């Protein structure tokens, strides 16, 4: 059975896609058969793997399972790492979901046939609260939440605390993203959040780094083009921490 990990945050631009791409790369490098499903119509993960944002029949055919999901999957240039691309039709995924009796169970259904093909499946979510994100909560075993220490709004925090507390939902882990440790504000927020018991903060933090920004130019995970960079090291540490925690059942 594949473990499903979703990078999620209601806020945009916090490092969800960067985390999904880099962690999926590391999962595959470590020998796991890995799939990354780009759920965002902006298709940022798809772009980062140089894959054409095109889904035959669009999100509608996928959600209604009119085309076999395996036939939509593309191998990336990295061994064992595959991608289920996004395209612009994903804008209307909510509508497609809404036509089902149990819309939130739908993404899990779409993934069902892949359970034996992959060890780990990453979901890269668009920023929002929608039927798509609710469907993600249902499909995922783990929510991985990037938090920029400067900008944590109380609304975001309340939602996270609620998710983490929900019975039967995914396990929730958060980590600090785009950290600038020289800023006093960042240090204060981090210290405060680490003391909140509803939320498991992972030890590793991803620093604000030009190498992560350069992913857009290089169109590759940082580990592939700058393996010795501090950002690459930080993603290694994050992956290592997450794996260790997943090895222990909840």
């Amino acid at each position, binding site marked *: 059975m594949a473990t499903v990990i979703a990078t999620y945050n209601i806020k945009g631009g916090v490092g969800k896609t960067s985390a999904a791409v880099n962690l999926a790369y590391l999962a595959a490098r470590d020998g796991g058969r890995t799939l990354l499903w780009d759920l965002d119509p902006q298709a940022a993960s798809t772009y980062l793997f*140089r894959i*054409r944002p095109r889904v035959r029949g669009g999100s509608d055919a996928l959600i209604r399972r009119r085309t076999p999901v395996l036939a*939509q999957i*593309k*191998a990336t240039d990295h061994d064992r790492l*595959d991608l289920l691309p996004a395209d612009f039709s994903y804008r209307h995924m909510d509508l497609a979901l809404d036509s089902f009796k149990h819309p939130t169970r739908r993404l899990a259904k779409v993934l069902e046939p892949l359970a034996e093909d992959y060890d780990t499946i990453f979901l890269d979510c668009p920023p929002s609260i929608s039927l798509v994100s609710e469907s993600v909560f249902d499909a995922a075993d783990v929510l991985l939440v990037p938090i920029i220490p400067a900008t944590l709004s109380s609304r975001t925090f309340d939602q996270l605390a609620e998710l983490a507390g929900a019975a039967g939902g995914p396990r929730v882990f958060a980590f600090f993203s785009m950290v600038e440790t020289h800023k006093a504000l960042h240090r204060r927020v981090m210290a405060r959040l680490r003391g909140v018991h509803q939320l498991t903060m992972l030890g590793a933090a991803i620093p604000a780094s030009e190498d992560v920004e350069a992913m857009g130019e290089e169109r590759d995970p940082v580990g592939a083009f700058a393996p010795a960079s501090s950002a690459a090291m930080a993603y290694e540490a994050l992956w290592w921490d997450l794996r260790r925690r997943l090895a222990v059942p909840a």
Partner: protein
Amino acid sequence: MSPEYVAEQPLSLRVIAAALDGAFRFGPVSVREEALTVYDTFDGRLAAAGLAVAVTGPEAIPARARALAGRRALLELATVTVRTETVSLWDDLDKTVLRLELISAPGLTPRVRLHGLRGYEAERALIFELLALTEAPLSLTDEAILAAGGRPGGVRAKVRVSLNPGERSDAAVAAICLALWEVVDANLPGTLADTDAEFLHDLRVCVRKTRSVLKELPGVWEPGERARWREEFRWLQQITGESRDLDVALEDLDALAGLLEDETDRRALAPLATVIARRRAAARRIMVRELRGGRARALGPAWTAALTGLPERSEADRPDGATPIGRLAADRILAVARQMVKLGRAIGPDSAPEEYHTLRKHGKELRYLLELFGLELGEREQIAPLLDALKDLQEVLGRHQDREIQAHTLRGMAEEIAALPGGAQALIALGRLLGALAADGADARGEFAAAFGAFAAKPQQAALRTALGR
């Protein structure tokens, strides 16, 4: 291993780039060049198992290959300098759609392996078409073996010559005997050099099969000719016999010692190995001298000339020369099978060893007839079960007799063993071993009834008649 493909014109990166015509671009190219040696046993055991071993040297031979080789020596069949250029083919987004390996070696046909990526099947098909690829008729290792004068797939004692039931018997017999001789001849150098014991074994198997053909299908030959060749092959069998027996004795030594329960006894047998090795060396010297002598060297050319000329010779003295082989072989096979059933039914617990021995000799003839002719002329699936039952029966009969031969050989060594250091203890252990051998031989006799019953069963024999269309 993914398949190798070739194209009409010799493949090179330049040729490939030109054929792709801008539809796909090359990513970075990596090049590896290694001197590889191709290993296999003489009878091609690795090739038969789909395991082609082309490695940098003997230390790199995988353990699995060594296990498959068993007692056979792994021979260096060819050495080639292989250049592998690996390149990713990119689409317009610089996304890899396929990885291509171009494999080349001096004097051999360059070829490619394609490693497609999931979701890029259409691109792979297009590349396949642009390069106009076809599956390579020979693998690189097979081509290398061929270029070095070897035989891809190896030389096996189990020769197969496809026969047509309507063809003349003399032509069929000549074709089979020529194929058998090829194997005898091919195994001669390894026999002389003592590369491993199986060369001599395979050589002798094919000599024995040749003798069976000469014996069982007399009517295709003039009587004088046939007598001459039977004598020549009897002689060849005889001059190689003792060496083979001692090869077997040496190979069986551990298994034999295993019949003894006492560890001290087993260790006391050590002088036995010394004596066998000594005798084996002496027997080999005589055999090698004979095999290098004039009679042996004249045999091959004369025999092959006689075989190729056989169908053209006058049929006055050869009543079955033109008989269709389907009929001739079927009649002979059924006659031998009937004879065996009759002989076997007469055997009981108190029968003399000679009776078992006679049955076994017939069994050997039947087995060769079935393998060389029956399987080729009749319905394979119907004949195979009978052949299996026959092999089981032969195994039981053989064990009985082999134990007697072993006991005889060992008794003949007693004096020599006694003269060696530790000889007295060895003799005591030998005595126990002879006792254990007799007991084991008796066991084999107990299994006879069941094995014979399976072979002689009415439906089994009836199936043979049907399979041969009689």
